């Protein structure tokens, strides 16, 4: 810690942390909590354009499903529109862009893993929608209300999982951050050494991408401590599984409505195909956003190396803030403060 004026360090931290907080505030404000801010909604800019596009594609779906009943070739158009709809729709809330991106940033995952997580969660999401409609509606003849209740239970599980993932990351990253700031230097070293012993996967990992990361740490002169990313869990896929489930468990309301409509037209399988293609489109958007987040995290890591002191602190601060974003997101979703999609009046 010596040699670096605290003021400068704090100023450097201010940037990422305040920006992330801004993101959360904007997200929460846009969600228009019920009972507050009852102003007429406004949507402009790029967001407004996305909104208009996805609504346009969604509205085309019912006509195309009907058309597919009369003429099989309309099914291809349906799949094309479903794909476009998925791409645009993922920009809306409920598809885990923010959670996945924050997760990747906090965990210092590679972009390949980011893409894999995005695709896995989007496919799981498609699968949940199909399972709910397939079992509840097609087999059991459940009502829309029953399906809505099922979705609500799934939501609670999924949002709780998001909070838990965030808390876990916050615990690991927050401590690394405090460590980087120079708090409790002595006792922490011991702490880390202790956890190190428990982390069985650690040695395998050492040879992969975490290598250049170690240099960052050693620049801070405690390269002996295990990297926080290693502490976050053993294998990346295993630790990513929780994130995949947390994000992908909750089905998309749009997909459920489309599936029920297709079922009513006697074209359930066309609905299933449409849902999977939608998921593919969703995955592409989420993966693209996640890749940008990972790339920025990588660049920040490189920059951190050139500025050993502040750089590492900013990096750890960024990771901690990303973990905090996940917690806040999950909590906001769980408490209903941040409205995701809903199935109304059923």
């Amino acid at each position, binding site marked *: 810690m010596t040699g670096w004026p605290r003021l400068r360090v704090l100023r450097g931290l201010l940037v990422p942390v305040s920006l992330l907080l801004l993101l959360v505030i*904007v997200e929460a404000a846009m969600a228009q909590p019920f009972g507050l801010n009852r102003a007429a909604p406004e949507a402009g800019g790029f967001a407004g354009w996305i909104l208009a596009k996805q609504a346009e594609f969604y509205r085309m779906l019912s006509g195309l499903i009907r058309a597919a009943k009369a003429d099989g070739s309309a099914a291809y158009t349906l799949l094309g529109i479903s794909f476009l709809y998925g791409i645009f729709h993922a920009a809306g809330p409920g598809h885990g862009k923010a959670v996945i991106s924050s997760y990747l940033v906090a965990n210092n995952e590679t972009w390949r893993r980011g893409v894999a997580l995005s695709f896995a969660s989007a496919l799981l999401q498609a699968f949940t929608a199909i399972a709910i409609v397939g079992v509840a509606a097609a087999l059991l003849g459940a*009502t829309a209300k029953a399906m809505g209740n099922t979705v609500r239970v799934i939501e609670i599980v999924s949002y709780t999982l998001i909070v838990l993932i965030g808390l876990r990351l916050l615990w690991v990253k927050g401590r690394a951050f405090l460590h980087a700031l120079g708090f409790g230097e002595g006792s922490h070293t011991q702490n880390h050494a202790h956890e190190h012993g428990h982390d069985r996967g650690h040695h395998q990992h050492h040879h992969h991408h975490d290598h250049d990361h170690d240099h960052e740490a050693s620049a801070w002169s405690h390269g002996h401590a295990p990297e926080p990313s290693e502490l976050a869990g053993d294998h990346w896929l295993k630790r990513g599984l929780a994130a995949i489930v947390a994000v992908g468990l909750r089905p998309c309301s749009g997909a459920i409505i489309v599936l029920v409509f297709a079922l009513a037209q006697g074209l359930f399988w066309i609905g299933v195909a449409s849902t999977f293609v939608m998921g593919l489109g969703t995955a592409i958007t989420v993966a693209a956003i996640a890749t940008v987040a990972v790339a920025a995290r990588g660049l920040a890591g490189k920059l951190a190396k050139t500025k050993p002191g502040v750089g590492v602190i900013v990096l750890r601060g*960024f990771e901690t803030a990303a973990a905090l974003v996940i917690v806040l997101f999950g909590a906001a979703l769980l408490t209903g403060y941040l409205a995701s*999609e809903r199935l109304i009046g059923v």
Partner: protein
Amino acid sequence: MNTLLRIFLVVLSGLATGSLAQAHPHVWVTMQTELVYAPDGSITGIRHAWSFDDMFSTFATQGLESKEKGKFTRDELAPLAKVNVESLKEYDYFTYATADGKKAELTDPAAGYWLDYKDQVLTLNFLLPFKAPVKAKELKVEIYDPSIFVDFAFAKDNPVQLAGAPKCKLDVVLPREMTFAEGKALSQIPVDEKNTTMAWGAQFASKILVHCP
């Protein structure tokens, strides 16, 4: 520090772009609205007839039992109508009224609401009474969903009618939609740049204005 700051900004705007796009409508409602006046010229209630789009109508009637397949009577739909009206309460029935600039309170729908099913479209009919009859020179009624999950649009024919207030002037303001040129211009603004030159917002509210002497 500047480069770092820039990178963070780009990432965040990337994330925020997505976040800013709200839920888009999953339910479309075509409305016909009647403003009900008492003989003394005060408004007593708002009668809505909301027709849902075919996908949502199919979804909402999924699993409901009916005597004749693909058809539902008013009685068969009564339980669904009850659920509809009860869950709308949480959203203030998406109806917001002001009388001469002051909020005019509405209460829960009067008994006798019902659902119709015709041409695979569900229509919810209900009357929202005002807490107390209001006399106003300018009455404004807005119908919208703040979270844009439900899209409200007036029907082409007879969107709004005044029942019992012949001397008042009625205006129906349709929500403003973004033109193609505006959408295109917006899409060309880089994501890391703040949109200050085109600071407009599309108003998604359908508005009814009534001016009485």
